[in-house]
């Protein structure tokens, strides 16, 4: 065994191969990174996934057709010592160093976890990886088990559990197509209530608008009358339907750096941002182009940052 190793190392003489490669320099260029973040994730790309300081490499197989907030990914590693026979060694990668891929661990995770774009795989190499079949490829081949089986499978196992945890986060994203669901339930209640304000309380249009949309309270007598007629004392909450494009935009890794620090009192920061941006833009008349959406997101993030900073201190004082 060891004599084989020596022979092999003598025949191939590129000892500096694992130092900083030119590919690595390329993908860490701040301009490149900014550009790739703006473009958003796409198939055959290498990314770093990060959550609470835990990072993993993935190759993106593709985005889900009906929900582009979810990507199918194949876990990868840049440490050859972690290989197991369940994986593939990929010689040619966007980082210019050999990496290990585990196509059998392919899984769907939310793109909000993607952190750093690291370049594109050659399309044919990506195909070999996706199909988990290196036959015919000079650059992809089957990995081997290490000497210490338990050590590498311990890492393998931990990695797998991490990815299932991430998969699980993807199962709890805000629902898409909200408008379709909301029309029926709550708006009908609200319509009925608004009608009752007219029929039971004889209110004018202006008054009705004030009660329904601007928080004007009913007097005690009015409340009693409404209760008698079988209505609550306050109008049913308006349920807002956030358009899909905002929900999807809020998930993009592009916003990640700024959103990571924001604490939205336990609420989903991305949902809050999408809601704020959507309502900000809905009120505008000067078009909803991409630049406008981006601007609205920026504004929403700024206001979230301020409120989360002040509410954070108040909480810590208690």
């Amino acid at each position, binding site marked *: 065994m060891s004599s084989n190793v020596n022979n092999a*190392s003598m025949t191939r003489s590129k000892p500096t191969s694992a130092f900083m490669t030119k590919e690595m320099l390329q993908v860490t260029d701040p301009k490149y990174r900014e550009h790739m973040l703006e473009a958003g994730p796409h198939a055959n790309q290498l990314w770093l996934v990060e959550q609470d300081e835990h990072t993993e490499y993935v190759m993106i197989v593709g985005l889900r057709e009906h929900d582009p907030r979810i990507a199918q990914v194949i876990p990868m590693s840049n440490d050859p010592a972690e290989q197991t026979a369940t994986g593939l060694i990929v010689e040619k990668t966007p980082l210019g160093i050999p990496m290990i891929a585990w196509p059998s661990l392919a899984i769907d995770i939310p793109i909000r976890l993607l952190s*750093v774009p690291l370049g594109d795989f050659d399309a044919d190499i990506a195909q070999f990886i996706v199909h988990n079949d290196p036959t015919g490829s000079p650059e992809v081949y089957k990995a081997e088990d290490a000497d210490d089986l338990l050590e590498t499978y311990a890492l393998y196992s931990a990695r797998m559990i991490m990815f299932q945890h991430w998969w699980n986060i993807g199962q709890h994203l805000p629902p898409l197509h909200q408008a379709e669901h909301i029309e029926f339930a709550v708006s009908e209640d609200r319509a009925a209530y608004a009608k009752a304000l007219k029929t039971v309380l004889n209110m004018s249009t202006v008054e009705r608008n004030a009660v329904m949309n601007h928080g004007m309270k009913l007097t005690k007598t009015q409340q009693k009358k409404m209760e008698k007629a079988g209505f609550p004392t306050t109008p049913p909450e308006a349920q807002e339907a956030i358009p899909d494009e905002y929900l999807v935009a809020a998930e993009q890794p592009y916003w990640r750096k700024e959103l990571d620090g924001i604490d939205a009192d336990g609420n989903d920061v991305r949902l809050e941002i999408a809601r704020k941006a959507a309502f900000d833009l809905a009120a505008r008349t000067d078009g909803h182009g991409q630049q406008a959406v981006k601007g609205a997101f920026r504004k929403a993030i700024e206001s979230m940052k301020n409120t989360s900073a002040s509410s954070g201190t108040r909480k810590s004082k208690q």
Partner: protein
Amino acid sequence: MPRTNTKNVDWDAEKHPRGWYAEYFEAPPVTDDGTYTIGDEIRSNRGPGKKTHTALAWVCKKKLNDYPDLHAIVEDSDSKNGQLNRVDKYWAEEFCIIRDGKKTPVGLRPAFITLYLSSHSDRQFKRRSYVPVGHYLAKEFAQNTAFGRLRARIEARLERCLSPQSGESVFEKIPYEGADAGKTGAQYGWHVRELPARLTSMSVFELADAVHTVDVLWPTPEEVEHVDMERSSMGLEYDPTNGRLYRKRGPKYNIGKNASKNRPAQLDTWLMAVLTAANGSMPLSQITEVMLVDHQYLAPDHQIGHLEILENDEGSIRADVETGASGIYGQTFAPINMDMSSSVFDAAYDGYNYNDDAYTRQTLSTIIRGKIGSAGLDAIGGEAFLENSPTNALRDFTIALLCRLEPTRSREEIVDQLDRTLQESEGSNR
């Protein structure tokens, strides 16, 4: 009587967002200005430079407190309080690169590359470096110090020692109460199967006294020194064709006579005596320290009792210090901040859809459980590994395991037989 001399201080949230007293009593908020000068340095250097090493040396300085044995590897350290010294810098540099058997640098450490790529700022780089640097030093401690190697040897003996009467293992590895397994890596102790599992109340010195009379043929200090010299000149064999590092088998000294027909190995007898006298369980590191009390020359750089200060509230040694031979057993870089017992995740784990293969999975799990035992299973993530691995991964692992355990049989033979077993189990269940 109401107090009249108090001034009512109005708190202006705008002026003092962190509370009016924050300026007096709290450290100023550390802000991340987003600059990544370390990253710039690595880019322009095509590798780590002075800035990178300094940042990492601070982390090493902190972590090295746990491993005095690693201090001694670097000679003439002039440690001053609050300052970086040669030892810290040495380990910071070593973290960044890997070396081959001749100690020539052959590349950047994968963990370092990941650290560099994943960070966006200096502050983030420093914060994120704690985990990989910690893992690296833990592994160096476990594999490349005299104490670490001795400990790995004792662990192997404890695992392998079988009772001549029943054929069952004599010693048992048990997780400590309160140590939350899936979360931070379980903490383990060893005890004699029939004796209590609670942590022993005896100190390493008392135990050393108790086993003083056990007859063991200890190696001579000269033998040990010779082996250590040869070891320290050995590096890893690097294979550039696949980027893997191979560890060459180093020379070894004997501790005690081997087993013969009518008498167990002397080392086993000694371990039995220690754990019997302990009348309870002990972490592996402490068992090793018992040996060092009278034979310090086996690991001259180790300070006995040092690990005690790293104990946690439950009395067991912190998981990141107490590692087995691989440097990761029992602290499987556990998925961060994740409570595996949480009900949210219990039912939800079907990111890998494999309900169809229930019978196959069951059969494979039974084989794996039978072959590696509970300690082995714990090492690879416990039941969660069996429940969450994709079916073909389970199958591949089973094959790898069988090939290791039965080196005389060919891989084809093993695969054939496994496939037949799987077909049968499926047939009988349909």
